[in-house]
């Protein structure tokens, strides 16, 4: 696809952001999903609600609270500032942090469903054969949930691509650092540069559509095979 006169920097920043967010969310989201799928704890509904909040909250609400949480005046922001010498807001790391919260449900929910589908049987069988819990998880639960890992990863990635409200609040719209694709599109529309807006928006539309078609096609096949 020809990009014409469009500046491609926001595209690269967005792809980097989505990649980092997805990779880190695999590490953070998997244990949360595993715990949620297997716990009988009474606080499970609370944890589940917290992980799903980003689905129902308007991104501006999330962005507003993140702005306060990540500020150098707040503990988290101050900790980051002393650790790295840079503020968490207006930085790429800050965007990754915000995106991880924003996309958390897209990682956790498919994995919880998959782990619940695995059930206790195979894990208990592995345990009775002497497998330590982590081994049982890695060699039994993960291979059985392969497809859901793919779905969760793809959904997280594409959801992060389209992120707007949160990054607008905490990113500061800095060209070359925190100006992501959706903000570039917004700026083009607001300044009536519709040709550039079309190029970027159509690219995002086609890409997101293709991703969803792939995910659903894949999901269907999985279900047919199971049923």
């Amino acid at each position, binding site marked *: 696809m020809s990009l014409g006169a469009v500046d491609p920097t926001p595209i690269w920043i967005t792809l980097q952001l989505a990649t980092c967010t997805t990779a880190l969310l695999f590490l953070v989201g998997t244990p949360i999903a595993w715990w949620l799928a297997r716990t009988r704890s009474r606080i499970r509904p609370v944890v589940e609600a917290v992980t799903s909040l980003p689905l129902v909250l308007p991104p501006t609400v999330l962005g507003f609270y993140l702005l306060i949480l990540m*500020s150098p*005046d707040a503990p988290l922001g101050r900790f980051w500032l002393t650790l790295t010498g840079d503020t968490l807001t207006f930085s790429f790391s800050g965007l990754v942090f915000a995106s991880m919260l924003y996309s958390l449900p897209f990682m956790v929910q498919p994995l919880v469903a998959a782990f619940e589908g695995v059930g206790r049987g195979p894990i208990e069988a592995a345990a009775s054969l002497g497998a330590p819990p982590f081994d049982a998880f890695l060699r039994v639960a993960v291979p059985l949930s392969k497809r859901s890992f793919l779905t969760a990863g793809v959904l997280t990635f594409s959801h992060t691509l389209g992120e707007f409200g949160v990054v607008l*609040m*905490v990113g*500061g*719209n800095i060209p070359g650092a925190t100006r992501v694709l959706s903000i570039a599109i917004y700026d083009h529309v*607001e300044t009536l540069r519709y040709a550039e807006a079309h190029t970027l928006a159509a690219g995002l539309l086609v890409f997101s559509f293709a991703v969803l078609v792939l995910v659903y096609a894949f999901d269907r096949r999985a279900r047919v095979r199971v049923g």
Partner: protein
Amino acid sequence: MTRPPGKRRFATWLIFCALASSPAQALADEVVVAVASNFASIAEALADRFEAESDHAVNLVAGSTGKLYAQILRGAPFDVFLAADALRPRRLVSEGRAVEGSRRVYALGRLRLWSGDTDGVAALGPERLASGDFRHLAIANPALAPYGAAAHQVLQTLALEERLEGRLVFGENIGQTYALVASGNAELGLVAASQLVEAGASSAGWLVPRSHHAPIRQEGVLLSREEGLEAAHAFLSFLASDDARRLIEAAGYEVP
């Protein structure tokens, strides 16, 4: 004959929805004013005063100037448009959506360099900008917001544009720019003087001299609609009255 309760409840719902969506503009003498967000709270005070002085009622719709402009182009039912700039009212006149000759500057915006302190004790001036001993300076996006364009001109006037390039962060509008500074994320920001009046810190920071940027002219215009014209005329004339001008000045703007 009794209907099943589910059906009756549904019917009640339908009636409720129909009532809730009936247009409020059906009332006589009501003027619907689309107002730029940065002027919304003072517009409320002005509307109260206007309603007390006349028989007319005012309905305010707040939004960004660009979005309200786009809505008006697509036939939004507004009678008066109080924009945050002069560009959009001018375009509406040339596009035949606003009444020719009705454009009028109702307020002039001023900028303040602010460090987020509301006690007004921190001494600030252009030398702080030149010193560079801060991480981030927040300004509104110059491409989108009139206050951003003015802030950009201030940096050009002070010949600091290049030196501060890596330290600029941009709010989508002046409201978000204020939030970036107030929340402590940006150490400095060029915000609207009116915002600091609203925050009860009217003398905080440094009032940027008006010679440092082109005037931030906020224009109002009468929109071309058939209903409510008389009330709309009355509201626009009220904005030029001494009463209204005093209120606007007290809110941190200048008046023409």
